[in-house]
């Protein structure tokens, strides 16, 4: 967690002129012709008022706010500047957003973990409020009155006593000459004074360009003189080229040449996979040329990876004791008492991200430096990866961030940007690397395959007296350390922080080897953890002949703060975001009430299910209603989600995120499955890796946001985890069939 103090806030104006000037170079709403890296920046005639790295005001009143987080559809590029504008008391129509390049001066820029707003909310308030104080001081000095007699009103400083007012632009130059006040001299607005934070009227900054096709995604970025490349990657992770024949490829009109990219040395991290690149005049010629390539690959230690036997291995491991990651009481003693025991096993397959925009990037290498434009969630990872692969300094890699056509975690990994840089170095000109959908699916950093084993001892009241949960999956850590087999870093994703009110409770993690690249996908391990926990909870409810909602509330237990183990770096989280079961109970109650739980007759083939999961510090409960037709096809007439994410900046966007999470959840629950045969991925495009289309998506998604003054929590991911178990629990209610593996399409319901 970052605080104001450890982010460089008090910086010299001069040092950060670059940020302000960049807005003239990078205008997201115009066709992009990036300036070459070495083009001298014109000196600004009149430096704008720029009290910090993050914000500047020009003499015409234009406020430029730096967005240091990437926009992949979650709204952080809008939300954080809104917070600045609010405390600045700025008129939003006079705000421009300058997308930051990758640079540690902005702190962590990795747009992941649903933490853009929660990590930067306080800082952005401070940025805006500091500007406001300085503008007031400048105006007060001009009027020869005390700053205390002045206030602000939407882009004006006002002195009510004399009826005077002056626009921000008019006092910007004078404000620029003032010292930046200390944090304790900068008052923040009270909540009732907020004009943007929490308001229904907020909409995405880029919305007008989005509906007119003027936005620039990575797919749309160009550089003068660039060529296009399509890369034939090894089908199995770690394979190297044995030989290749490009004669036919070179005959394709528009194909210029072929080049090779070295296969990474383990661990693979975000390095290029290696392969043969076809360089061409346009994207189509590169694609066509690639189809005519003949490549032979050598062997790989992962060539024996087959999904069906691997599943058996994972399941066998899940039945053996693993490393203990949370332990209360003594589950073994309770199991040994000889009472009623219930066991169940759950399985979830690999998933692919499939952002609508496949991986793509344009990069130019020249004189030991790289300039890249990419749809990346993490421009600093672009710098580090390219620097490492090319053996240059990361400061010599400039990464501009375009809009992202979806990310979902895939675009935190910049292997395709590194490919463009590697090829540009060989060619001596800018290269645009465009992945096909097949490349995207074959060469993903996959959501992990997982097996979970659950066991409970049931007391006389039907509630568990002991609960054992064991999870096994190839860890994300294997991407960074080839010997990693335990996922201890992922236990906080809904496994070691399950606060059920059960006296004997043990959570474990077993080891697993990786054979494909493993990465984080929207809500990450929470998906399989929540699937096992909330499917099992529902099984226990039915076993006890109890209503699922009431049983879940009993499991959560009375309102209380649950003590949890925290890592040292999460001290801020521990203090500001205690696990509060009152908030968890509340979302369950709201979702149940809004869905009409237990009050509407369901009829044949219909049913409702519930699950409630806390992830990324947000409490979410979801009720799914299903209708299973005579052919066994599942329809979803309604979804009711209630969430408590603390303070919310843009409520309509938050609803959009949770509506989308229900669709994302439908895709993974009904269809999502990636498998491997002899190390190669079997799926290739949307015909065999299906997503929920409009006719299979939930017909209606109702999202209720609990009003809260708690610190902001995550909104991009937390809607996903409860969806699949709620859906499966509804399928059980509708059909009496308890399905314990994802996706549902593998099970015949009728």
């Amino acid at each position, binding site marked *: 967690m970052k605080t104001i103090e450890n982010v460089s806030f008090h910086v010299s104006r001069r040092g950060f002129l670059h940020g302000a000037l960049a807005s003239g170079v990078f205008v997201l709403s115009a066709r992009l012709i990036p300036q070459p890296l070495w083009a001298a920046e014109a000196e600004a005639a009149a430096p704008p008022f720029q009290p910090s790295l993050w914000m500047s005001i020009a003499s015409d009143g234009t406020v430029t706010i730096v967005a240091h987080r990437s926009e992949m559809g979650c709204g952080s590029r809008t939300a954080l500047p809104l917070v600045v504008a609010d405390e600045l008391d700025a008129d939003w129509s006079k705000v421009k957003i300058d997308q930051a390049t990758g640079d540690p001066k902005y702190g962590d820029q990795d747009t992941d973990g649903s933490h853009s707003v929660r990590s930067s909310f306080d800082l952005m308030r401070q940025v805006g409020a500091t500007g406001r104080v300085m503008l007031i001081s400048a105006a007060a000095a001009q009027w020869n009155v005390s700053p205390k007699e002045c206030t602000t009103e939407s882009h004006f400083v006002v002195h009510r006593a004399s009826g005077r007012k002056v626009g921000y632009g008019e006092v910007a130059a004078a404000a620029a000459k003032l010292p930046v006040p200390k944090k304790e001299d900068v008052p923040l607005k009270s909540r009732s004074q907020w004009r943007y934070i929490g308001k229904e009227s907020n909409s995405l900054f*880029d*919305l007008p360009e989005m509906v007119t096709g003027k936005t620039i995604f990575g797919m749309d970025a160009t550089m003068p003189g660039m060529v296009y490349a399509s890369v034939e990657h090894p089908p199995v992770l770690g394979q190297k080229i044995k030989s290749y024949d490009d004669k036919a490829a070179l005959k394709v009109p528009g194909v210029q040449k072929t080049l090779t990219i070295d296969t990474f040395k383990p661990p693979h991290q975000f390095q290029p996979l290696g392969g043969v690149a076809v360089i061409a005049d346009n*994207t189509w010629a590169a694609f066509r040329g690639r189809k005519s390539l003949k490549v032979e690959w050598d062997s790989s230690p992962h060539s024996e990876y087959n999904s069906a036997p691997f599943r058996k291995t994972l399941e066998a491991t899940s039945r053996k004791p693993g490393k203990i990651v949370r332990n209360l009481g003594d589950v073994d003693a309770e199991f040994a008492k000889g009472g009623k025991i219930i066991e169940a096993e759950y399985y979830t397959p690999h998933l692919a991200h499939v952002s*609508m925009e496949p991986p793509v990037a344009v990069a130019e290498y020249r004189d030991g430096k790289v300039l890249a434009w990419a749809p990346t969630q993490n421009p600093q990872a672009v710098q580090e990866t390219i620097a490492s692969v090319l053996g240059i300094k990361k400061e010599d890699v400039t990464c501009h961030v375009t809009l992202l056509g979806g990310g979902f975690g895939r675009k935190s990994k910049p292997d395709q940007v590194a490919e463009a840089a590697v090829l540009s170095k060989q060619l001596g000109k800018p290269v645009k690397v465009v992945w096909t959908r097949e490349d995207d699916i074959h060469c993903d950093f996959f959501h992990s395959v997982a097996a979970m084993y659950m066991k409970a001892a049931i007391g006389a009241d039907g509630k568990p007296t002991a609960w054992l949960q064991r999870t096994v999956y190839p860890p994300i850590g294997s991407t960074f350390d080839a010997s990693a087999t335990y996922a201890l870093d992922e236990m906080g994703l809904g496994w070691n922080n399950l606060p059920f009110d059960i006296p004997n409770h043990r959570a474990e993690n077993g080891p697993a080897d990786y054979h494909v690249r493993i990465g984080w996908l929207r809500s990450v391990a929470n998906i399989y953890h929540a699937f096992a926990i909330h499917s099992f909870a529902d099984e226990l409810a039915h076993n006890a002949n109890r209503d699922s909602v009431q049983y879940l509330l009993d499991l959560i237990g009375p309102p209380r703060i649950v003590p949890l183990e925290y890592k040292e770096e999460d001290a801020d989280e521990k203090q500001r975001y205690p696990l509060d079961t009152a908030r968890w109970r509340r979302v369950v109650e709201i979702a149940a009430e809004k869905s009409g739980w237990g009050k509407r007759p369901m009829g044949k083939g219909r049913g409702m299910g519930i699950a409630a999961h806390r992830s990324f510090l947000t409490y979410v409960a979801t009720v799914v209603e299903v209708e299973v037709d005579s052919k066994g096809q599942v329809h979803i007439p309604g979804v009711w989600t209630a969430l408590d994410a603390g303070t919310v900046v843009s409520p309509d966007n938050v609803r*959009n995120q949770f509506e989308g999470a229900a669709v994302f959840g439908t895709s993974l629950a009904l269809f999502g499955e990636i498998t491997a045969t002899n190390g190669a991925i079997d799926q290739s495009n949307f015909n065999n890796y299906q997503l929920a289309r409009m006719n299979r998506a939930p017909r209606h998604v109702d999202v209720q946001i609990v009003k809260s003054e708690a610190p902001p929590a995550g909104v991009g991911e937390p809607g996903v985890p409860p969806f699949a178990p709620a859906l499966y629990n509804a399928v059980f209610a509708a059909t009496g069939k308890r399905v314990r593996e994802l996706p549902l399409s593998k099970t015949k319901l009728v």
Partner: protein
Amino acid sequence: MIQFKVNGQEKTFGGDPEMPLLWYLRDVAELTGTKFGCGMALCGACTVHQNGAAIRSCTTAMSEIGGTEITTIEGIAPMHPVQKAWMEIRVPQCGYCQTGQIMQAIAFLKDNKNPSDQDIDTAMSGNLCRCGTYQRIRAAIHQAAKHQATTHPTMKHPATKHPTTKHQAAKETA
């Protein structure tokens, strides 16, 4: 040479006749509002209009467009009632698929002025949105239908519901 129109402008193309229209639009004509998503007509991100009908430009070869009129999102005069509705309902998240969704919706609403949910689902299920904005897309199409009805009353259909309009139109023609 293949001759055709893009957004009202005469164009010729002498390159690879197998090149999909999508890549001509993006790489040659530099009209990047039309997006690449799958290359197999499975996702609809590349939707444009050929003589007013929605087509998938990723599987339409340049050899198939001679003598026809292509319209891309850049050729839709903003704010079209569909774009206006998309703004009002605040449909997009990442925005990448939305130009294809809008082109599909515009062509659909020409043929169906007052669609049901079922009609919309049928017409729009070829367009994927990974962010999952389908509920808002459906709402925006209903809203756009209302906008079109009020913006262009004479175009409202069926004629039997508006005998006066029909009568006036007939008189004007005479």
